[in-house]
């Protein structure tokens, strides 16, 4: 399904933030915002829901720790108990350091892999940029022209009032 998009290009974070706020106020659908660096306050302005990644990290950390405690118990006290200096086979306190490390490993690797998964990032993926320069010094606000009430000229004027350096219409498939 092709979409009609309107891309406003800006050169400072303040203008970008103002453009996002103005677009939201007017009820336009923001497809995405592109920025060369993480700008404080953009996700609030865009109204993005908070990421659920922390829960994934928490769950994976718990899973890693749980599995490791079980594994240490099973290897040392069940599968092949070895008497080391007369210590109890199930020496739980001595299992703490490795359990901690494995928890961190599971949580960190899981965080990164789930980040790649939700953002659809993979090696050699062809990058689709709305306009050139969004990885250098340009900011882009991409709006979708949802229905006939959307007046491209009017929106262009609004963007230009907010110091847009360039506004263009794109009739393509998905940009994001």
């Amino acid at each position, binding site marked *: 399904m092709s979409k009609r998009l309107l891309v406003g290009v800006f050169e400072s974070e303040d203008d970008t933030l103002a453009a996002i706020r103005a677009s939201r106020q007017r009820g336009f659908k923001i497809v995405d915002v592109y920025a060369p*660096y993480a700008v404080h306050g953009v996700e609030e302005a865009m109204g993005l829901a908070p990421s659920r990644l922390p829960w994934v990290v928490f769950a994976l950390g718990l899973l890693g720790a749980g599995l490791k405690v079980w594994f240490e118990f099973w*290897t040392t006290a069940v599968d092949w108990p070895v008497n080391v200096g007369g210590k109890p086979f199930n020496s739980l306190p001595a299992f703490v350091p490795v359990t901690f*490390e494995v928890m*961190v490993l599971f949580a960190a690797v899981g*965080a990164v892999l789930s*980040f790649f998964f939700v953002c659809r*990032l993979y090696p050699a993926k*062809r990058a689709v940029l709305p306009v*050139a320069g969004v990885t250098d010094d340009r900011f882009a606000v991409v709006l979708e022209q949802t229905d006939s009430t959307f007046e491209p000229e009017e929106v262009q004027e609004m963007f230009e009032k907010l110091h847009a350096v360039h506004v263009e219409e794109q009739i393509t498939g998905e940009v994001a």
Partner: protein
Amino acid sequence: MAEAAVALPPPLIEGDKSIAQVTRDVCAPMEARPTALWWVALLISSSFLLLGAVAIGYQIAVGVGTWGLNRTVGWAFDITNFVFWIGIGHAGTLISAILFLFRQRWRTSVNRAAEAMTIFAVMCAGIFPVIHTGRPWFAYWMFPYPNTRGSLWVNFRSPLVWDFFAISTYFTVSAMFWFIGMLPDLATIRDRATAKWRRKLAGVLSLGWNGSYRAWQRYEVVYLMLAGLGTPLVISVHTIVSWDFATAVLPGWHATIFPPYFVAGAIFSGMAMVLTLMLVARRLMHLEEYITLRHIDRMCKLVITTSGIVGLAYGTEFFTALYSGSSYEQFVFLNRALGPLFWGYWTMVGCNVFVPQLLWFRRVRTYVPAVFAICILVNVGMWFERFIIIVTSLSRDFIPANWFHYAPTRVEVATLLGSFGLFFTCFLLFCRFIPVIAVAEVKGVLKYGKPRLESVHE
């Protein structure tokens, strides 16, 4: 207006840069041909690397008998080097994770290089225990996998197994943290590269990053998560390294003070190494406006803080020995200060406690040659700290009949030099092929210390 502007802290990045200028400044040295100085430095460091490779090949072929170890002193040069390098790495995580959690935005200018240093230092550290196993081709036996020997599992009560897990987790997490931080910069390189191979390579590695804010939002969350996980991780790693010693019953090692003492020492030595590298890099790559005297000043303050903690630990060790009433414990510490290795002990105290006191003076903290010299001395002092802890406790333990000296062989010295060669070769290649400064992060702090009304349109 004027008064409000005066109340602002000075900007983090000097020279009133525009966003595009940051990209240009950081990418320019990578896109130009390498300088003659870089080639000379690479030649020297790779020669040391070669020397180390030869030494390692020799000692693996012949055996650990090529070292100066004996029945009394079973750990010496190699474990000293191991702890030294691991410690160096910790400052990188301090800068990238702990200072991130504390919202110290000045870290953006140095975190990329500091994290690179962490990874290379951990690589250097890993060499030593692996060779010390005697049969390094069986190093994978450290991993608890189902095997044909029983299955005989590893002993999870052993600090050496803890160490294996700690170091490998630390390396993995540091490498991921480094790569995630680099992702937007790789996209920047991809989009501005003119050389075809560079665009291709950056295109593969940048995973299709396009600066979409939906990705940025999750990126920020993942970065925060990794910083949150990295902070306890770095503390756990050196704590576990110190347990290699503290769980033994040897006088001078068997102390509860070891974990905090080692962690502080690690950050102390690592900070000194970061400063050493950054002072050189900012000069050679013309990054004085990004790594400013204020950055150096702040890192110096971290050096003197950790130096204070280390100095306190040295004093506490003597007090504990005295207060314990154990004659063995008391003897070990007197032996460290006045015994055959007294010169090493006083090098350590001089370099780690006395010399850094100069950093109390702002004049010293902002005079680059002085900071450089102090940092080199701290690195020397911290190497001696580990040497003294390990060798004095082992060479003179409970029964005087067992006492024996230790002296390193040429093979051991060559391996140490080789590890420096590996470290600097990796660092030089890093300076050449990867943006030394986190471009996307620095862009975010350009406005720091500038009045808000000073907009581009007015």
